[in-house]
């Protein structure tokens, strides 16, 4: 039974995430409305784009009600992770509220470019099966907004200030970078999620 559901929320990295799962031997189930999540044993919410239109789409298709009550492991990637938080400065929009905190714009500064684009190093903050075998790996980031380092943050990254790179609370996880584009380390992180039962 293939039961890894990938939500097609209109984000441009949707295909890339599916291909990355296929490289790990998993044939993902593409889901376009909340009904499709039934019988899924884990769910991935990819996302590239802006927070406000993405939230509108999640509400229209019923995901906004279902995702916060999901009983199986959930992974948000990039914008998909940001949407797990309470709200985002990007379009000043309320998000899914699964994790506390507000997503804020990264501040450009001398020698500090926004968007934060390229390979940067993970700083593990505590042990987690999601980070097994990963350590201080370089992974690929592309984003202009970021979530704060809170209790849910298990690995941070720094671009000027520290921000949340990997989050996990209960059965909910998020990765700000793109594991589907982060080489060997990215494949390991995705593979860890596929084996994770949720804490």
């Amino acid at each position, binding site marked *: 039974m293939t039961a890894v559901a990938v939500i097609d929320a209109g984000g441009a990295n949707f295909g890339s995430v599916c291909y990355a799962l296929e490289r790990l031997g998993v044939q993902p189930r593409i889901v376009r409305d909340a009904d499709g999540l039934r019988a899924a044993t884990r769910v991935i919410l990819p996302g590239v784009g802006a927070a406000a239109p993405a939230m509108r789409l999640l509400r229209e298709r019923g995901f906004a009600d279902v995702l916060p009550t999901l009983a199986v492991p959930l992974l948000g990637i990039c914008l998909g992770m940001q949407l797990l938080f309470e709200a985002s400065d990007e379009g000043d929009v309320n998000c899914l509220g699964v994790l506390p905190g507000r997503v804020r714009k990264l501040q450009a500064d001398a020698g500090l470019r926004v968007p934060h*684009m*390229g390979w940067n190093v993970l700083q593990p903050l505590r042990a987690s099966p999601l980070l097994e075998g990963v350590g201080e790996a370089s992974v690929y980031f592309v984003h202009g907004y970021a979530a704060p380092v809170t209790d849910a943050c298990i690995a941070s990254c720094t671009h000027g200030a520290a921000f949340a790179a990997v989050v996990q609370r209960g059965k909910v996880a998020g990765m700000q970078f793109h594991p*589907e584009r982060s080489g060997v380390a*990215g494949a390991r992180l995705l593979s860890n999620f596929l084996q994770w039962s949720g804490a």
Partner: protein
Amino acid sequence: MLSRRIIPCLDVRDGRVVKGVRFRDHVDMGDIVELALRYRDAGADELVFYDIAASPERRSVSRDWVERIARILDIPFCVAGGIRSVGDARAVLFAGADKVSINTPALERPQLIAELADAFGVQCVVVGIDSVREADGQWRVRSHTGNPQAMRAPDKTTLDWVHQAQQLGAGEIVLNCMGSDGVRSGYDIEQLRAVRELCSVPLVASGGAGTAVHFADVFQQADVDGALAASVFHSGAIAIPELKQCLRGQGVEVRL
């Protein structure tokens, strides 16, 4: 800390990687996926695929080869050439490309930058700029550079265009300094520094790489985020693992 990126650029024609000899007599270099993986294994941080036939022939990039790469490749890649509309960009991005790069179409209709940024986010939108220093000492842009016979000189200074492109929503600028392109005598540090001063988004240097030292120079002296090169990588003149070791030795932050 954010790593400086090493970016090989591959010219693509009909799904094959080719090498042009003075813009003609293209030599087949091999299968696109095979070469992409070879560069991935060598430690390239990102790849740019430039569809050299799409723009001159007024057709859009073929979705097929973009998807073929996206299925196999696990590092980011950008597609350039032949993207003139939101529809063109959507096809390429949804086939799995991480970014699209636009050059001549953006000069012809700058609003295209804003349309792409609105539709996909600024992080997907790369503006490529071909630039030369003219007799009066000003750097000015060139368009239609894919074909030397068709090249045009819109009356626009490079610095003005860099400013405007960012205002419209460019998430990254690739500056190709035509004066040093293909000469292998080093990147145009002076011009890149001038552009860096007013560029707050990532800036990628292009044109002039000949030795590992040239890469160290452009990172340290022009503070660019990435350095793009083609021939030195394709010919084997520079191997990426050695290049990165050399950069690390010079104190440049790179991903090993």
